[in-house]
């Protein structure tokens, strides 16, 4: 059964979209990631124009992140003060990102920039995750407890505009979360991702937040950033396909629940390695497409470029 997507202007099998939503949803539930970094490339792969893929995925992520934020809110694991500072950065970053997106689209280089961003970020994150989880797996086997200093003093703590974050038990410069939020905002607008896969490591390693509040706080920020991206992409570029977002959403809402239940039963460390492998594979495929000689070097763009 095919459905014609009014904004993407292509006809796609309904079950393919539902299946993609469910598949990425299971991974989201399993690993606690938004899944945008897998969904956007998948959408582009099945023929959705990159701009529509990014805009519609942002729309779908609004739904995914509100579910997450509400759950974390009930568990009181959201640092709203930290989230708000991240959010200010996120709104600035994503607004700039949408306009940057428009400019790059006009230059005909948006596809390249999207691919390059994916290759660079997925590559870094994938490798970090892979080595981290391998190390902890090995440690578990040897039965050695993790050790580490409670507080390391680095250049980060020398920054001005210090702020106290009670929930995170931190006293750090507001510039730090502001900058992290901004970077994630730009990426959200250009890559069609929530940015959790960048923000979570940045919150833990760069800002030094306790892991208990990281997921809830990042989801809180992501919710507003993807909502901002959805609004701006719809307003400026008309690239949000509600029908596409809804179909993906139905699949992912179910998939996430399956993933969460699955995750409770399975050993998490081994699955971290699996996620890392998945991230690296996506990265590898995109990198290959950039380097390999294309079947046809020509491409079309409506409306004329510069």
């Amino acid at each position, binding site marked *: 059964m*095919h*459905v*014609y*997507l*009014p*904004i993407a*202007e*292509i*006809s796609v099998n309904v079950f393919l979209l539902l299946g993609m939503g469910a598949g990425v949803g299971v991974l989201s539930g399993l690993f606690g990631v938004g899944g945008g970094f897998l969904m956007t490339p998948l959408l582009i792969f099945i023929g959705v124009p990159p701009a529509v893929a990014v805009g519609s995925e942002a*729309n*779908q992520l*609004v*739904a*995914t*992140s*509100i*579910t997450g934020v*509400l*759950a974390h809110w009930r568990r009181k694991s959201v640092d709203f003060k930290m989230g708000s500072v991240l959010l200010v950065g996120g709104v600035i970053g994503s607004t700039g990102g949408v306009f940057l997106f428009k400019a790059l689209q006009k230059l*005909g*280089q948006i*596809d*390249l920039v999207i691919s*390059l961003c994916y290759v660079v970020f997925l590559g870094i994150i994938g490798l970090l995750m892979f080595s981290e989880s391998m190390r902890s797996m090995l440690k578990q086997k040897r039965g050695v407890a993790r050790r580490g200093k409670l507080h390391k003093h680095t250049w980060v703590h020398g920054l001005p505009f210090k702020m106290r974050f009670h929930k995170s038990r931190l006293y750090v410069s507001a510039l730090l979360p502001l900058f992290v939020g901004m970077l994630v905002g730009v990426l959200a607008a250009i890559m069609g991702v929530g940015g959790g896969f960048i923000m979570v490591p940045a919150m833990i390693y760069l800002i030094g937040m306790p892991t208990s509040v990281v997921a809830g706080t990042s989801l809180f920020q992501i919710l507003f950033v993807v*909502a901002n991206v*959805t*609004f*701006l*992409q*719809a*307003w*400026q570029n*008309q690239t*949000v*396909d*509600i*029908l596409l*977002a*809804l179909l993906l*959403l139905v699949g992912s*809402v179910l998939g*996430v*629940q399956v993933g969460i239940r699955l995750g409770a039963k399975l050993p998490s460390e081994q699955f971290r390695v699996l996620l890392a492998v998945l991230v690296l594979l996506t990265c590898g495929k995109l990198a290959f497409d*950039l*380097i390999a*000689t*294309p079947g*046809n*070097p*020509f*491409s*079309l*763009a*409506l*409306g*004329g*470029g*510069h």
Partner: protein
Amino acid sequence: MRAFSFILALVAAATLTRAAIAQIAVDLSKHQIEITSGFDGAELLLFGYDTRGGEVVVIVRGPPETISVREKERTAGIWINQDEVTFKNAPSFYFVATTEGLRGDGKLETILESLGVGPRYLGMAPVDSSLSPERVNQFREALITLRERDQLYAKEPGHVLMREDRLFRTQVPFPSSTPIGDYTVTVYEVIDGWPVLGTETPLRVRKAGFGAFVYNTAHDHPALYGIVAILIALVAGWFGGWAFRKS
């Protein structure tokens, strides 16, 4: 357009020794294609009557567009869009069909060229390109190839079937990615190797139903559309979480 084709017909008629005026009547099975949520391509039947019973050429064209063709080149190891040529008046859709008598030997091509309606002869003009004419031609060919791949341009001319020397018909296929707009369907009668404009019949492709509503709202009220998109996602996400918390 109508007036123009009428003049064309007059000119054609005047230049021919045998004062050839095409005598054909044509109609389509539908004059409107509606792209609804379930749209997955369509096929129209074009049929007509030719009093003279000669050869017939059918041409269907979508509304003209301005389109850019970009070429990737390897730069520092990766493939990056470099040269670009923008063409004006490229039809968004192009289909040609002909009767058996005009197939092969480049007969059809000659006719299309003389009319300026073949894919390679449509006045697809490059917009101030600094590239050489040969390069521009390369880009023009690339445009045609890409559109052929997407089934928007006919790769091979379709068949016009003649019945009892008078009745003719052909199928016009439209892919699922058929662009919207006002199309022109032109039928030429070929008399002594000369194409004579027979008739034109209108065809409109438009979005309909829920899809049209979504598309129009997105373009006419983009800010409102964005807010509604967010609200729908919020409600859906909240509902999803609620439903599964209960279970």
